[in-house]
């Protein structure tokens, strides 16, 4: 989850998010290097007593500062496109879950085998147990098995919402009348938080998403429990 005064991304919990994180590190390093160079040059220009009135043009440096940025852009574009295509790869999911946005809660349906369907409301601040996170906890989490490709079909029942879990590198708009597909693999067990990412009315900030990734055995136990409770 997000931490106070956090600067970077949350720890990655899926292979795609790891790639995005590393790409961001790469691109940001390039940005820092260029910014440092430019800042240095500005300071050097501003703080010298020397004046030069006689240089009109210079072929060599013009070539350098045209070709070098082009190379840098290619060095950014290639990993970027690699990740773009990686995210689009065909994966054969082991599990399909439907995430349906309502005003102002999510509901989840697991209907591959039998009917598991439940609503997921935020836990109000006054009902939190010690150690729980304000505005992030829900009464029923979306449980998925680890190391399994999961397909999430996102839609909405009323207005636009958006289903986002930063640690998994996932965000997908929930549009009424439309079924949007996204997929992820939870690489490790854990609890991953997200928040509704499309303005949807008064309680838009109070309909969080919690994904709990557990080993398959525990997922089986949980789904049996959910069926009994229904």
């Amino acid at each position, binding site marked *: 989850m997000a931490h106070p005064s956090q600067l970077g991304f949350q720890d990655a919990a899926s292979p795609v998010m790891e790639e995005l994180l590393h790409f961001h590190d790469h691109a940001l390093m390039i940005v820092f290097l260029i910014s440092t160079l430019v800042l240095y040059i500005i300071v050097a220009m501003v703080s010298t007593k020397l004046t030069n009135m006689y240089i009109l043009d210079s072929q060599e440096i013009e070539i350098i500062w045209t070709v070098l940025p082009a190379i840098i852009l290619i060095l950014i574009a290639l990993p970027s496109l690699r990740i773009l295509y990686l995210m689009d790869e065909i994966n054969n999911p082991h599990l399909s879950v439907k995430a349906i946005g309502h005003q102002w809660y999510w509901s989840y349906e697991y209907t591959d085998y039998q009917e598991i369907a439940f609503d997921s409301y935020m836990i109000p601040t006054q009902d939190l147990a010690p150690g729980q996170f304000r505005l992030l906890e829900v009464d029923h989490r979306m449980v998925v098995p680890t190391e399994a490709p999961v397909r999430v079909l996102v839609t909405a029942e009323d207005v636009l919402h958006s289903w986002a879990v930063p640690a998994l590198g996932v965000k997908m708009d929930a549009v009424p009348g439309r079924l949007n597909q996204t997929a992820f693999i939870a690489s490790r067990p854990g609890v991953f938080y997200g928040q509704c990412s499309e303005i949807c009315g008064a309680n838009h900030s109070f309909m969080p998403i919690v994904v709990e990734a557990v080993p398959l*055995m525990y997922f089986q136990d949980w789904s049996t429990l959910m069926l009994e409770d229904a």
Partner: protein
Amino acid sequence: MSNNFEDKIRSYSTAPFDARFPNTNQTRNCFQNYLDFHRCSKALSAKNQDTAPCEWFQKVYKSLCPNSWVTKWDEQVDNGNFAGRI
């Protein structure tokens, strides 16, 4: 217990990738399988044949389609005002 678990793992499956619907928008995938199930059931029962082959389409649309959509369409089919051609 472990035998049961292994059986479950082997048979654990969800709607597979459908090359007719490769993109993010899976609305048509859900709707098409719903239509195909009803058309298949109608065609096979008209010939007095077993409708077991149609169960694939039902499995797929149940995996993909939100329950509220299925309930609404089932109601429309029962009332005779379903928009799709079955």
